[in-house]
């Protein structure tokens, strides 16, 4: 007969308000095999855990059920407590009577009955639990950082400074990301390039960092401590070892009219290019779609002028596979465009703002390029349409953000601050100009942030109008802004020279595809999900993968840098040990019963099943059976459900444990 201890938690009043915890304990106490059933105010508190530890010793318990919150919340806590008291942690289970019961039901009678059921099922399960020993796996002390923006750069530098090898993979030809595009940064108005480029150079020079630009993640296999990452190094058409970065090829390229993505289409670049002068690495790449040589086979100027002979038109994409122990995902964001909606996207365009067809209606990032000293206008604010200096500039906040009807209901977090910054930059550059801002709320929680916004209003005389804009249309060379001021309760019409839209911060296109390769989860917008909103804000639910920056949600630079360092700290914590203990929730084969049909091998998503030969003492092959490599097994249990003879069992979720619960229904 089992000796199971059941502890029913009140969770303050969270559970006891709707569930009669005393009755639950009393009813469960009557079950055979239950040696002790009691209730307590806060099981997770120190005294609560003490109660549990004491009971294990006093009542010689051989199984525990803690009826409290979700196991996703506190399973670890109570298993550790059990372990501390000498009980194998896998003999401790949680019955979720909070998230699945007290919080979702109102009727006390019903909730109590359900709670009793939930606990009862768990008691039956624990009776079939077996003591499990953790699995240890070696750790490859080498990290992969995906994304070379400020988040990726910070994380890579921190890990590398700690003495570990880092692979930094960036999709674009240069690292730098969005921060390299910014003119000046709030709330200090220091120049973005001035603080960014030294860090980029540090990355390039760091002995522990291997940089793969113009590269993408092709595939990720393995698990924490033991990932195998395949990186696609896209054909650069320039040999990185030979190139000296002299720039002659770019100067001589006859194809010069390609719109620069880095400059948001305001400037142009040649077909062989670096995105911006301070690029790291300073090695150009050939844009094969626009290169005359690749389109028609004629030209070849860059190869002819290249002294070291670095231009290589025959270069192919290269796949390299690297072992790493941890992954930091720092893929950043992109801005919502007001253009018509992409196919299959929940996002609707802004037809009332012209669907992006009015040339002098631009987004915030484009304004950054206009204001940047290294930008296409040399830092002069000039209209894209006719190059004139705009005297009336209207800024519109919350374009796309906080608009569930357009597909995005969240706040993009950075727009209030950068719009305030834009009004200041504008005023500094165009003294006789006037900035107007249509806004709903000014959200400025951050150190020195509200002061910054107030300065824009009070000292730089930006006119803030509380209200949104219904429509924008071209009228001659002006843009008519039809807005309203809800404080006054009147309509406002402004004939503007330039309109700047603070469009929403969105995850990168293809963020979901990368998440699927990594096996991490993402929310409805494709922002990556952290393991816990408060307590595990940088970890993914998938062990060994960490998040940094705006790929997780809109963030400004200070938050991004903090999170990147936090992710790096998590990686270093992992790397501080030589071996990693893994939960022993893995599949094992009953070799006696296995008939070697290998359905398990066919369905295993991890390739963890091998064919094992059983030989007699003379070395003759007797039979072949399946074998599950516990280091590789992810613990999904698909093999067990598929196995016709149930010769493979997932520890922790054996048929016996499951059936015990079903029988108790």
């Amino acid at each position, binding site marked *: 007969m089992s000796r199971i201890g059941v502890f029913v938690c009140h969770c303050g009043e969270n559970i006891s308000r709707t569930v009669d915890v005393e009755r639950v304990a009393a009813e469960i106490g009557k079950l055979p095999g239950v040696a002790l059933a009691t209730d307590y105010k806060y099981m997770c508190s120190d005294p609560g855990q003490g109660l549990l530890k004491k009971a294990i010793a006093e009542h010689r318990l051989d199984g525990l059920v803690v009826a409290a919150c979700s196991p996703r919340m506190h399973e670890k806590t109570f298993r550790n407590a059990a372990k501390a008291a000498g009980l194998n942690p896998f003999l401790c289970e949680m019955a979720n009577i909070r998230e699945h019961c007290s919080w979702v039901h109102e009727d006390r009678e019903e909730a109590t009955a359900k709670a009793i059921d939930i606990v009862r099922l768990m008691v039956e399960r624990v009776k079939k639990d077996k003591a499990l020993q953790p699995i240890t796996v070696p750790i490859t002390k080498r990290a992969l950082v995906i994304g070379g923006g400020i988040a990726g750069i910070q994380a890579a530098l921190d890990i590398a400074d700690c003495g570990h090898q880092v692979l930094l993979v960036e999709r674009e030809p240069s690292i730098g990301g969005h921060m390299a595009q910014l003119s000046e940064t709030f709330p200090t108005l220091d120049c973005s390039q001035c603080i960014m480029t030294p860090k980029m150079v540090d990355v390039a020079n760091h002995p522990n960092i291997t940089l793969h630009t113009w590269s993408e993640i092709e595939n990720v296999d393995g698990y924490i401590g033991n990932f195998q990452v395949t990186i696609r190094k896209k054909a650069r058409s320039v040999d990185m070892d030979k190139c000296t970065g002299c720039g002659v090829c770019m100067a001589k390229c006859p194809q010069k009219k390609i719109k620069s993505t880095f400059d948001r289409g305001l400037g142009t670049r040649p077909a062989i290019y670096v995105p911006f002068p301070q690029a790291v690495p300073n090695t150009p790449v050939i844009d094969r779609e626009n290169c005359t040589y690749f389109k028609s086979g004629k030209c070849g100027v860059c190869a002819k002028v290249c002294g070291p002979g670095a231009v290589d038109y025959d270069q192919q994409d290269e796949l390299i596979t690297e072992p790493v122990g941890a992954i930091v995902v720092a893929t950043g964001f992109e801005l919502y465009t007001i253009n018509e909606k992409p196919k299959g996207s929940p996002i609707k365009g802004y037809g009332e703002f012209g669907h992006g067809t009015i040339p002098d209606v631009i987004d915030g990032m484009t304004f950054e390029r206009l204001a940047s000293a290294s930008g296409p206008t040399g830092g002069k604010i000039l209209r894209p349409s006719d190059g004139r200096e705009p005297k009336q500039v209207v800024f519109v906040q919350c374009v796309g953000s906080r608009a569930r009807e357009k597909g995005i209901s969240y706040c993009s977090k950075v727009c209030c601050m950068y719009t305030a910054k834009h009004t200041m930059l504008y005023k500094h550059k165009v003294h006789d100009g006037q900035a107007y801002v249509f806004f709903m709320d000014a959200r400025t929680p951050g150190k020195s942030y509200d002061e910054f916004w107030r300065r824009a209003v009070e000292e730089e005389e930006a006119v803030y109008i509380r209200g949104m804009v219904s429509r924008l249309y071209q009228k001659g060379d002006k843009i008519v802004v039809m807005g309203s001021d809800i404080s006054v309760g009147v309509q406002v019409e402004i004939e503007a020279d330039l309109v700047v839209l603070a469009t929403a911060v969105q995850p990168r296109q293809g963020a979901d595809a990368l998440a699927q390769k990594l096996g991490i989860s993402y929310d409805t917008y494709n922002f990556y999900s952290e393991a816990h909103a408060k307590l595990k804000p940088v970890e993914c639910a998938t062990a060994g993968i960490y998040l940094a920056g705006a790929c997780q949600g809109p963030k400004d630079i200070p938050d991004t840098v903090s999170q990147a360092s936090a992710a790096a700290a998590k990686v270093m914590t992992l790397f501080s040990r030589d071996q990693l203990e893994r939960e022993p929730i893995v599949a094992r084969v009953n070799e006696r019963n296995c008939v070697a049909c290998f359905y398990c091998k066919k369905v295993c998503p991890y390739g963890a099943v091998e064919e094992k030969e059983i030989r007699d003492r003379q070395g003759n092959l007797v039979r072949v059976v399946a074998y599950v490599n516990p280091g590789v097994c992810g613990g999904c249990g698909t093999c067990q459900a598929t196995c016709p003879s149930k010769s493979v069992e*997932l520890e922790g979720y054996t048929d016996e444990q499951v059936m015990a619960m079903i029988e108790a229904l």
Partner: protein
Amino acid sequence: MHETKEKHDFEPKIVAFVCTWCTYAGADLAGTSRLHYPSNVRVLKFPCTGRIDPVFILRAFQRGADGVLVSGCHPGDCHYMAGNLHARRRFAAFRGLLDFVGVDLNRLQFSWVSAAEGGKWVEVVTDLTERIRAMGPMEEFKALETEECWSGELNSPELQEAYNNI
């Protein structure tokens, strides 16, 4: 504000087999969001829908479930990459079989509920509960449980003759 609770003649027993990463988390979210749904459902947690054996569903019906829900991650979201995709085929086949032996498929619901879809969990559970409540108890398997011997005629002439010959 509490709505007055409706009393029903029949409260079905609903069993939910869910994966821990998506649907269980989604149900947790329904809890943390304080959404409300009928209390009929009993949740059994699995690492993945890939682990869920059709035998479990069968056994649940035999043990008195009036409705069964199987729920996991949306395709592409599986924590184990493809467990849910294997499950999708397995359950498509199993549905066909149950239908063929005459089980009303309205009693067996499959769904994808992600960790972010607390609202969908509530909707799925509520819809299923209400549907089963309207359908009434699942009598078929229960009736089988209580039957002891074959339902053939006991007083057939052949048997009578055999008896007389003893």
